[in-house]
C-alpha cells in the first residue's frame, strides 16, 4: 500500500472510532419505497458512509494489485446515491463486510478479475435466489469453475452505479451489454461462439427497432424483444441445450410469446443470428446477390444513356430546333 493511502487509512480509523462513539447511526437510516428484491435484511452496520468517503471521495485514490493492475478506490457519492442500492439506503459496509471501526482488511486478490469474482459472492448474501439461478446457467457453470472470463454480477449490473434493471433504459441498452463480450472476436473465438450475434440482431426487425429506441428514446417502452427476452436472464443456458428456449424445437413456442398463433414455419422468418449465405437463408443471400448486380447494371445503363443524351444536346447547342 502506498504511503498516501496508508496515511488516509489512519485518518479513516480515527474517524471510524469517533463515529462508533456516537452510536450506530447507520442502523436506523435504511428505509426506501423500493420493493425489496433481496432475501435477507443486511445486518445493522456500525460505520456510516461519511467515514469511508473521508478517503474514498478522493478521485486519485487507487491501489496497485499484485498483477500490476490498478484498482481505483474512488467512489462517486452522487452516483451511488442515485443507484438502486443508494436509493434503498444501503451503506458501504452493507457490502464491504468486515470493515469495522479499527478494521480495514486488505482485499487479498491477485488481479481485478479475481476481485470481481469475489465481489459476486457478496451479492448472493442478499440476492440468493438470483444467484442460484445464475449458478445453474451457462455463465454460472463457468463461474463455478473459477473461469476468469465469466461475467459476474457487476459486469452487467455495475458496482456503485447499479441502475434499476426493471427500467426501460436498462432493457433497451441490454443488447449492447451482452455485446461487450459476445461481439468480442478474441473472447468468442476462445469458446467457438459466433461473434456476429449482435450485428445480426441489429440487422433484423427486432434489433433495428431496439437500437433506435436505445439511441433516441431509451425511456420509452418498445414491444420488440432484447437478448434476454428469448435467451433468459440469469438462467441463460447453452443454445444447444435441449431445454434452451431458442433451440429449434422450442423456438416456435418462444416466438408465440409475442406472436400469438405463429405457425411453425414462422420461425424461419427470424434469421437465427446467421448472416445470409448459400448454406443459411440462401434465398435472402440470392436476393442480395441479384440486387448487387442488378442495381449497378440498371443505374449504370441509365447514367450512360443520360450522359450520351446530354452530350448530344451540348454538341447541338445553338442549332435551330
Amino acid at each position, binding site marked *: 500500500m502506498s504511503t498516501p493511502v496508508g496515511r488516509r487509512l489512519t485518518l479513516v480509523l480515527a474517524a471510524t472510532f469517533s463515529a462508533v462513539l456516537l452510536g450506530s447511526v447507520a442502523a436506523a437510516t435504511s428505509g426506501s419505497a423500493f420493493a425489496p428484491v433481496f432475501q435477507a435484511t443486511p445486518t445493522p452496520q456500525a460505520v456510516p458512509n461519511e467515514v469511508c468517503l473521508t478517503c474514498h471521495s478522493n478521485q486519485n485514490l487507487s491501489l496497485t494489485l499484485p498483477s500490476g493492475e490498478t484498482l481505483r478506490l474512488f467512489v462517486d457519492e452522487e452516483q451511488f446515491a442515485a443507484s438502486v442500492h443508494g436509493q434503498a439506503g444501503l451503506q458501504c459496509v452493507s457490502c464491504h463486510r468486515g470493515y469495522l471501526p479499527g478494521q480495514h482488511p486488505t482485499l487479498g486478490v491477485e488481479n481485478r478479475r479475481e476481485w470481481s469474482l469475489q465481489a459476486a459472492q457478496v451479492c448472493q448474501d442478499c440476492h440468493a435466489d438470483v444467484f442460484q439461478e445464475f449458478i445453474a446457467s451457462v455463465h454460472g457453470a463457468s463461474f463455478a469453475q473459477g473461469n476468469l472470463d465469466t461475467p459476474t454480477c457487476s459486469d452487467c449490473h455495475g458496482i456503485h452505479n447499479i441502475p434499476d434493471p426493471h427500467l426501460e433504459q436498462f432493457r433497451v441498452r441490454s443488447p449492447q451489454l451482452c455485446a461487450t463480450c459476445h461481439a468480442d472476436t478474441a473472447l468468442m473465438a476462445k469458446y467457438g461462439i459466433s461473434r456476429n450475434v449482435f450485428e445480426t440482431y441489429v440487422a433484423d426487425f427486432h434489433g433495428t427497432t431496439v437500437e433506435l429506441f436505445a439511441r433516441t428514446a431509451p425511456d420509452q417502452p418498445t414491444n420488440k424483444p432484447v437478448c434476454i427476452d428469448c435467451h433468459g436472464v440469469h438462467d441463460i443456458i447453452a443454445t444447444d441445450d435441449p431445454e434452451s428456449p431458442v433451440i429449434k424445437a422450442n423456438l416456435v413456442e418462444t416466438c408465440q410469446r409475442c406472436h*400469438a398463433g*405463429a405457425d411453425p*414455419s*414462422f420461425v424461419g422468418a427470424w434469421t437465427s443470428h446467421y448472416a445470409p449465405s448459400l448454406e443459411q437463408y440462401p434465398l435472402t443471400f440470392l436476393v442480395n446477390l441479384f440486387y448487387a448486380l442488378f442495381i449497378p447494371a440498371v443505374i449504370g445503363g441509365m447514367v450512360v444513356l443520360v450522359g450520351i*443524351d446530354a452530350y448530344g444536346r451540348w454538341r447541338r447547342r445553338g442549332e435551330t430546333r
Partner: protein
Amino acid sequence: MSALKSVVRFNLSDRLEHWLLVVSFTLLALTGIPQKFAHQGWAVALIQLLGGIEMVRTLHHLFGVVMILEGVYHIAAVGYKVYVRRSPLFMLPRLKDLQNLWISVRHNLGLAPQRPASGRYSYEEKFEYWALVWGLTIMTITGLFMLIPLRVTQIFPGELIPAAKAAHGWEALLAVVAIIVWHVYHVHLRHFNQSIFHGRMSESEMIEEHSLEHERLRAGPLEPTPQEVQRRRRLYLPLAAGFVILALIGILLLVSEQTAITTRPPLP
C-alpha cells in the same frame, strides 16, 4: 391556346394518378429509406424528425396502401381506355423502341442525321412506365409479406420474410436512384415537360418529341361513337367498380393482421 395550338395528352384521371404517385412515392421514400439505413446518423435524425420509428412505420404502411390502391385504380383505368374507348396499346414495348434507342444514341454522338420518330410514348417513357410496373409489383408483394408475416408463413416457408425484406430495401433504393437519374433528367433537366400537370402539349413539342403521334392525331383517328361508348360503359363500369371494391376489401383484410403483442410481457 390561340397562337400555339396544343393537344390533350393526359386527361384528368391520368393527372390524378400522377399526383397520387408523386405523393405516395415521396412519402414512402422519406419514411422507408431511413429504415433501410436505420443506424446512420442522418437516418436516426430523420426518423426522430418524423416522430419516431413507430410513427414512421405507421406512415409507411399507410402510404404503401395508398400506392397499392393507385395500382388497382390504374388497372381499372387502363381497362376503361382499352375496352370502352378502344384505345391502342400505346405503352406496349415494340422492336421499334430498341431501334429508336440505337438511332438516338447515334444521333447524339453525331453519327445519325435524324433523331428517332416516336409515337405517343417514347422509348424513355415506356422504359420508365415498365420500370414502375415492375417496382410496384415487387414492392407490393414484399411489403405485404413483411406486413402480415403470420398469414404468409401459414402458406409459405418463413425464409420468404427476410428475403422479402432484402428485396424491398434494395428495390426501394433502385427506384429512388432511378427516379433521380432517369425521371428528373428527362422531364425536368433536359426540358421541363409540364404536360402531366395541365394535361396539354403544344403542337411544336408534339412534333419534336412525338412526331408519329402528332401525325396520327392530324389524320383523325377513328373514335368510337357516343352510343358505342355508352353501351360499353354500362357493362364495364360495374365490373371495374366491383374489381376495385374487392381489391379494397382484400387489402384491408390483409393489412389488419395482429402480428405481435403491443405490450411485452413483464421480465421473468
